[in-house]
């Protein structure tokens, strides 16, 4: 094949230029340490590099988010520890104040310290974090959450919001708890029900906060423990109209008010339930109500009272001399001639019998009262110390939420109440016992909150570790794609240099050959 002279030069020059271009490219790679100089070198690789760089940056951001969350959580932890310490001290003060050896003066010292503790607690509840935001205000971070309300009690100006931080692509962790969660949503009593003594009780009965022994049997309701008088009332009224010439009449009075009257032409009530019914129809006027359990009729005052209950049965409408009689419900043997009326007086004293009703008036259980003996009904167990009096009432009602500050204020109120008389002392003990039960609930609730906080910090730690591992993994993949293999590039560079030298020498040789040299 023919080659023109121009072609000879052309092809040699071309080879040398190509070699130079390759060398220059390898030089650029060696200089920057990167395999990919422009996306054209490896388009898929370039896209992957962008992805990985973004993922690494996002990972770093997650670490920053985790740091922010951790900061707030440890602040919260500190505050909660402070609250727990206060509670422990208050508990000690309560037990101290409950002791009968205390005097009003010494109790006053206790309440002074209690008041300071309450203020301290309010201060803790209004803790701010490093950025000046309130920790326990929910979403309203610039509003002070807790303060004393003007009419008494405590107000919460925050909400129940909870803020979350993104600490990994798939997990968010809360960075705090709202003031409501920590300080307000605490059940009182024993968590299921709370015990309350009637403020007018006259006995010295002290009720135990109690517990639920059988969740399946427990029915949520308000139960009343009464200490009534047991009567011997029966359900029959018998007229004995000798000579059948009269219309005998029977009158039943309680505490001076006639509750029932019937004559022999009428139909007297024939069941204890009915008898109780007629008595209860007038309980507003008499202040006495009747409770029937099976074949026993009990009488109790509608509110605790030290007054006697007088039951009077009277026979009337008889012809004197006939010897007419009525056998009354309450066992009164009324005789027109010998005694037309009969009184039964019930005087309040240490109770011998307790009777427990639910809110509808259904009777749960009845028993003989014994100090320190368990009382069980409907899955509930409680007991009494001391001696309740007839007419006293205690209620067990379902637990509601009660905030911590109110609990502590209740203790102050209890310790400042009179303690001169035996029933006053019993009242004080009942109140303090209630506060102690409430405090135990608060301690349980707080430890649950602390456990949650601890759990979150563990989650953060775990995510930090796995984020680090992911970061490391991504960096090594990135390096594989992006970084130059120096050994390979250096040897390639050497080889290209040799090729260039060879091409140059060949060119020199060939271009020197020309026929005109020999002419």
């Amino acid at each position: 094949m023919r080659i023109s002279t121009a072609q000879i030069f052309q092809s040699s020059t071309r080879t040398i230029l190509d070699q130079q271009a390759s060398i220059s490219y390898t030089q650029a790679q060696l200089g920057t340490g990167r395999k990919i100089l422009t996306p054209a070198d490896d388009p898929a690789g370039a896209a992957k590099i962008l992805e990985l760089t973004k993922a690494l940056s996002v990972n770093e951001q997650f670490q920053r988010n985790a740091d922010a969350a951790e900061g707030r959580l440890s602040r919260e932890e500190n505050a909660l520890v402070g609250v727990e310490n206060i509670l422990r001290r208050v508990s000690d003060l309560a037990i101290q104040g409950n002791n009968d050896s205390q005097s009003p003066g010494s109790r006053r010292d206790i309440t002074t310290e209690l008041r300071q503790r309450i203020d301290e607690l309010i201060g803790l509840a209004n803790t701010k974090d490093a950025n000046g935001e309130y920790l326990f205000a929910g979403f309203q971070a610039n509003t002070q959450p807790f303060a004393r309300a003007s009419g008494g009690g405590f107000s919460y100006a925050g909400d129940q919001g909870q803020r979350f931080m993104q600490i990994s692509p798939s997990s968010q962790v809360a960075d705090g708890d709202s003031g409501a969660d920590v300080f307000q949503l605490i059940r009182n009593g024993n968590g299921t029900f709370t015990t309350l003594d009637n403020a007018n009780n006259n006995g010295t009965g002290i009720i135990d906060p109690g517990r639920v022994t059988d969740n399946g049997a427990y029915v949520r309701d308000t139960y009343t423990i009464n200490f009534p008088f047991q009567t011997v009332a029966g359900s029959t009224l018998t007229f004995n109209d000798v000579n059948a010439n009269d219309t005998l009449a029977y009158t039943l009075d309680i505490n001076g008010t006639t509750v029932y009257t019937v004559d022999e032409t009428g139909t007297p009530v024939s069941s204890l339930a009915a008898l109780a019914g007629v008595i209860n129809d007038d309980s507003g006027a008499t202040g006495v109500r009747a409770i029937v359990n099976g074949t026993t009729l009990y009488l109790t005052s509608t509110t605790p009272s030290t007054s006697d209950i007088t039951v009077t049965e009277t026979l009337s409408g008889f012809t004197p001399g006939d010897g007419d009689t009525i056998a009354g419900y309450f066992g009164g043997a009324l005789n027109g001639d010998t005694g037309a009326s009969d009184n039964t007086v019930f005087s309040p004293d240490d109770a011998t019998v307790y009777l427990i009703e639910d809110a509808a008036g259904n009777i749960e259980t009845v028993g003989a009262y014994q100090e320190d003996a368990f009382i069980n009904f409907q899955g509930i167990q409680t007991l009494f110390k001391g001696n309740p009096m007839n007419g006293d009432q205690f209620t067990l009602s379902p637990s509601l939420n009660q905030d911590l500050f109110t609990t502590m204020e209740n203790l102050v109120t209890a310790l400042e109440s009179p303690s001169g008389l035996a029933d006053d002392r019993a009242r004080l003990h009942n109140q303090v016992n209630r506060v102690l039960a409430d405090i135990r609930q608060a301690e349980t609730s707080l430890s649950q909150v602390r456990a949650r906080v601890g759990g979150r910090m563990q989650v953060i730690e775990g995510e930090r570790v796995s984020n680090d591992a992911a970061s490391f993994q991504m960096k090594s993949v990135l390096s594989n794609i992006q970084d130059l293999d120096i050994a390979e590039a250096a040897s390639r560079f050497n080889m290209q240099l040799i090729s260039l030298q060879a091409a140059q020498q060949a060119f020199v040789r060939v271009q020197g050959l020309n026929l005109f040299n020999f002419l």
Partner: protein
Amino acid sequence: MAATGDVLGTGVSALLAMQRALTTVGHNIANVNTEGFNRQRVDLGSRLPQVAGDGFIGQGVQVTSVRRIFNSFLSEQARTTSSTFNQLDNIYAFASQMDNLLADPQAGLAPSLQDFFNAVHDVADDPTSAPARQVMVSQGNAMATRFQFIDERFTSLYDGVESDMRSTLTEVNSLASSIAQANQDIIIAQGRAPGQPPNDLLDTRDQFISELAKLVGVTTLDEGGGVTNIFIGNGQALVVGTQFRELEVTSAGFDLSRAEITFKPPFSSGVITDFVSGGRLGGLVEFRREVLDPASNTLGRLAIGMAATFNAQHQLGLDFNGAQGGQFFNVPVPKVFPSRNNTSNTNISVSISDASVLTAADYRLTFDGTNAWTLTNLDLSQTVTLSGAGTNANPFVGDGLRFSVEGLSAGAGDSYNFLIQPTRQAAGNLSVAISDPALVAAAAPLRVTAPTANGGNGQIDLGAVTAFTSLPLSANGGAITLTFDVSTAAGTPAAVASNAVSFVGTKGTQAIDFSGLTLGNIDDGDSLIIGGNRFIVDSTGAVADNFTTRSYYVDTSAVASLDDLANAFATKINAIDASGSNTFTQNSLDTIPAAAAGVITITSAYATSTSTQIAVTGNAFDTGGVGETAGTTLTAGTGPAAGDIITLNNQDFVFNFLGSGVVTGGAQTQVTIADTAANTAAAFAAAVDPQASISAAAVGATATITADTAGSAGTVLVTDTNTVADSGISQVVTAGTDASGVLPGFTVTNGPGGTIAYNPVTESGGKTFTLATPFGAISFTLSGTPINGDTFVISDNTNGVGDNRNALLLANLQEQLTLAGSTVTYQEAYAQLVADIGSQTRETSVNRDAQSSLLDLAVEARDSVSGVNLDEEAANLLRFQQAYQAAAQLIAISNQMFDELIGVIRS
């Protein structure tokens, strides 16, 4: 016999011929480095011989022609390959500029996208921090600036393309002129020496054409007569004969800023840009169309998509001042270019309707002259379906765009054509709309509270708000309260059938009708509600009544028919009415029946003081048993005893007096009827058969029916005209076959109202609800076990400056598949752009290298035929030189021959 002159003549001819040959060799040697030179050869031919008797005598040699060694096929091939190579070379030159721009990790978009979203995360970490918000706004600005920077580089590439076009066209024009001139020269030259090719002129013209081919792809046509015509594009003539046309850059298209190629007047024929291919010019056109335009559109789509989706989420939040978030970014608007040929100058309006389905294509909106508008996707050359009517209120919507042609009033015969570029160079118009850091909307609009008074352990979790309709709540009815009710109207009580128990109230007779029921559908828990009292089916007969919740259990253990069921209910209702419990009074049952005209009803089985009853005294009549219906005959002898109750079922009771037998008149034929309800004016009236009379009675009094005549038969119809206003029945019962009984749930106060069914027994694991319109943007999940009366309150998130829910959602937008029909994230879209440019550049580079090798081969092939080889020419020099010397010698010999001849003659 040879003449001496013959030898001389032959010698001279050879001399002259060799002289030509040497001249030609010398010409070749001189032009060894001339571009486009085709080596020439002298064609030698022997002269015509002389005819003599002894044969033909040769007369020597002559030059027939000087010819160039030229292969038109190889030359053509080299030219077309060069066109393609130059096209690829130019594309690569521009594409690698874009490639380098995007490669730079500092100048690229990815780092500033990342910095922006990191700043959003920092706001989520601490929404009340003013510095964090300020950083977010600043990073937003930095990111917008980076978008603008890249867009500016793209713009400068557009400018580069335009200026390269201009300078290339100048060269093309001058070459066209030269070719036309060459055509002219060749025609003249051929005229001067017909039959002989004007080699050098031909070479020159071929060289011009080769140069032109580097600039633009050309097609040549040899017209014959020495003229070559040049065509470009798809048949546009550039040079025809000695005439040529010039090209220029104009903006004759829709977009006045875009450079287009067209012929200069007076030959302007419209834009031919897209027809041009090959050469540097073709490279420019193709680069702009295939690489730069799509890249600009894709970048614009990313800018619009990110701005629109970010704005959408931002507007679902509240800023630091508690107001609804506004736009964070100013979203770039689509470009619209009307055609100059449109019937009127009114423009249409175009906006983005859904950034997530935007494509990177350009569109054309045309009116067909009758009544239809068509939208065409220019990338795919496909029509896009449009919804809507094109008015401002109901615009056309398609491919994420919204069009309104209102105001254009296009009618028959009108022609409209609009070019729409939704995303072209949109990135340059991205900017941040806010400067006050307080306007960053980090908080969510609602929050939920479970009041501390709640006794149960129900929980509520609020979902993310999906729209801002009906918000803030304070302007739309106030905070929404959900109150848990163990029985709500959301549940339908079981209806009853047959043998109704009637209750009469001010609203007229309310019949509780059991007849429509199927006994098998009546389950435990089905109930009848009367005035707040609930009578519940209990097949065990063991469940205790609950007076607190007013739930009373009807023992249905012995019920075998609907009649039995009705009676069981009636019995229970009666029992409750007079239970005698000292905490429950009868008045709490609101269904004290009153008699309406013609009806007496008895409800109570007890002779208590406030219920209606009929007490029959005396025993003159025999009812045959309690529960008689009208028309029953009372027969004497076994009459009712005092205290017996006769139950009337909504009908009049007829006492039939029988004659004969032991019926005697007087007191013992009295039936005393007493309506002892504490009611308003009562009166008994009776339609009395002559044999009996009845006395009228007032409230609380008794009426006496007296048989007039002993032994007579008759009927007494007793009616109680007493009407009583009672409190009526508050629950209207409808018949039905509901078997599910009472459903517990929440009543909704404010908001959409109504009720939400929620059964803690089966659904306490969690159930999600969305409120009814127009509050459908609010959703929540309820779980746990609330008790009756527990509430949850959904309210505006007033003062919630520590809330970061919206900031979290904004930060997480970068992980959502938000663009291109919800298939890619922001960074993925950008990475795709980079990869696209990279692979296009790579592809071009590879093709260019391949084409370069092809070009080398083609040039080699051509030069192997027509290139000058110095060694070959040197050999030719020697050859012709020897021949010349030999020819000179011939002349010398001829001279000697002549001298000999003359010498002989002289002496």
